[in-house]
């Protein structure tokens, strides 16, 4: 471990240019920060000089001004955040609560696997958005159908990942646990579950990203609020700054939830430094 860190430091010192040194001294990713600034600047310039296709696109400055002037203090804007977040959390958490146990069962029970796997494999390739019409027909409210579609987005991912995770548990670990005196229940809790945590981790990380994709699309089609709806309404009402504000908000919201999930997973698997 110590060797690995030493190795990295050496590469950082040898790397050419001042950014690496600056990054090391300040702990900030200066290269990345510069790229963001360059992106925003380029965008502003393209809009200013009315580059091809940019005639109707608002610039970052205009969008930011509109945001500060009206949206930052507007209750309905923050309600959009809340509505989308609630759907993501509901769909995502439900998917984990049902998907993790199902994945564990499928991985450990051969008969159940034979029974259910073909059905799962057939349903898995159907994109969550394709569930929208059926979902609206089935569920009594639009809210429930959006949550359901969001759930679908994360559900298959976690089931398949947990299932694969169970099947890669080291035989030696199971054998040793038995040698050392563990019974079946203990083996499940202290060997199977921790062995599968990395796979759960992958499933959740992929799942949370997909969940945001799905929720935004579903809101555009069937929602009456939320960040997806906000963005779509900006387009329909010809207030193009709102489209930008909506998109950037979605970006931040997605980033925030991914960061939250990865923080949680880090806490759950402290041995994976």
């Amino acid at each position, binding site marked *: 471990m110590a060797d690995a860190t030493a190795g990295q430091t050496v590469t950082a010192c040898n790397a050419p240019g001042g950014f690496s040194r600056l990054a090391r001294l300040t702990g900030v990713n200066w290269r990345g920060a510069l790229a963001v600034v360059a992106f925003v600047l380029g965008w502003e310039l393209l809009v200013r000089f009315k580059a091809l296709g940019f005639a109707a696109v608002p610039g970052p400055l205009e969008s930011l001004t509109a945001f500060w002037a009206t949206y930052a203090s507007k209750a309905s804007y923050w309600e959009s955040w809340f509505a989308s977040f609630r759907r993501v959390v509901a769909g995502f958490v439900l998917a984990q609560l049902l998907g993790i146990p199902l994945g564990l069962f499928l991985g450990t029970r051969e008969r159940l696997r034979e029974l259910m796997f073909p059905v799962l494999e057939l349903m898995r390739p159907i994109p969550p958005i394709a569930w929208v019409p059926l979902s609206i027909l089935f569920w009594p409210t639009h809210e429930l159908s959006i949550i359901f579609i969001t759930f679908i987005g994360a559900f298959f991912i976690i089931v398949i990942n947990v299932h694969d995770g169970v099947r890669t548990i080291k035989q030696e670990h199971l*054998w040793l646990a038995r040698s050392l005196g563990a019974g079946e229940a203990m083996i499940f809790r202290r060997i199977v579950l921790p062995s599968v945590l990395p796979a759960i981790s992958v499933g959740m990380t992929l799942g949370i990203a997909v969940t945001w994709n799905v929720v935004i699309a579903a809101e555009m089609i069937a929602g009456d609020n939320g960040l997806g709806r906000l963005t779509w309404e900006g387009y329909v009402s010809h207030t193009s700054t709102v489209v930008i504000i909506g998109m950037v908000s979605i970006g931040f919201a997605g980033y925030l939830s991914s960061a939250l999930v990865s923080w949680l997973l880090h806490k759950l698997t402290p041995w994976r430094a």
Partner: protein
Amino acid sequence: MNDVLHQGALSIRQAGKIYDPAGAAVVALEDCSAEIRAGEFVAIVGPSGCGKSTLLNAIAGFDRLTSGEILLDGVTLASPGTEPRPGPQRVVVFQHGALFPWMTVLENVIYGPTRQRVLGADAARAKALDMLRRCGGLDTAGQRYPGQLSSGMQRRVEIVRALMNEPKVLLLDEPFRAMDTVSKSAMHRHLLDIHALYPKTVLFITHDLEEALFLADTVYVMTTRPGRMKTMLRVNLARPRTLDMLVSHEYLELKRQVVAGVHEEAQKAFERGERELA
């Protein structure tokens, strides 16, 4: 101490194992016999795929024999009619290591005795720290995760985890196979020291003849599959073993006696491998 020394006699009688008898019928072991005394350090040398792990798994209680039997202190451990049952009296250290990566070193080491309720958590921790310290100052690594240790340290911790259960037999399945010469040599020193401190019956599996002769009291050479004991050799080198013994007359004489046999079996295994691939 004497009590411990009188335990751990292994008797392997005409052990046989056929994998998948209805289909491919791979005969892994056939008529494999050995008498191992309590406290003896035994090394089993054999070419790759000759059935060494199969024998070890039968002793450990991971798999069933299809003929013959294995007794530990007169009690049948394995036979075609015995349900395989792993237990703390015979713990394995595997080639690739099998510490639980999600537990700290200390949690790994106390897992056996606390699980079996032989010791309370505090007593187990005290015993673990003591053993870790004796086995080369490993106690300072107690709060680390296995992934943060070198492979040599991991393997030693694993040996300590096995010894914590006061096993009658310590089963080592090529534990140093993947190591470079220098680390391997350091591990030999550690293992010999540990064996002097805790004189259990040791079954050490390897395909490295020099390693076997340097470590063991008795070396068995196995034939290619189906595995049988081909030769048995008593190593009358004094203990503690030192590196200069590796060039001593006695050591070289022992090596001369078996090297031809081992080479012959390795050659057969290699040729069969070529045939099976062709």
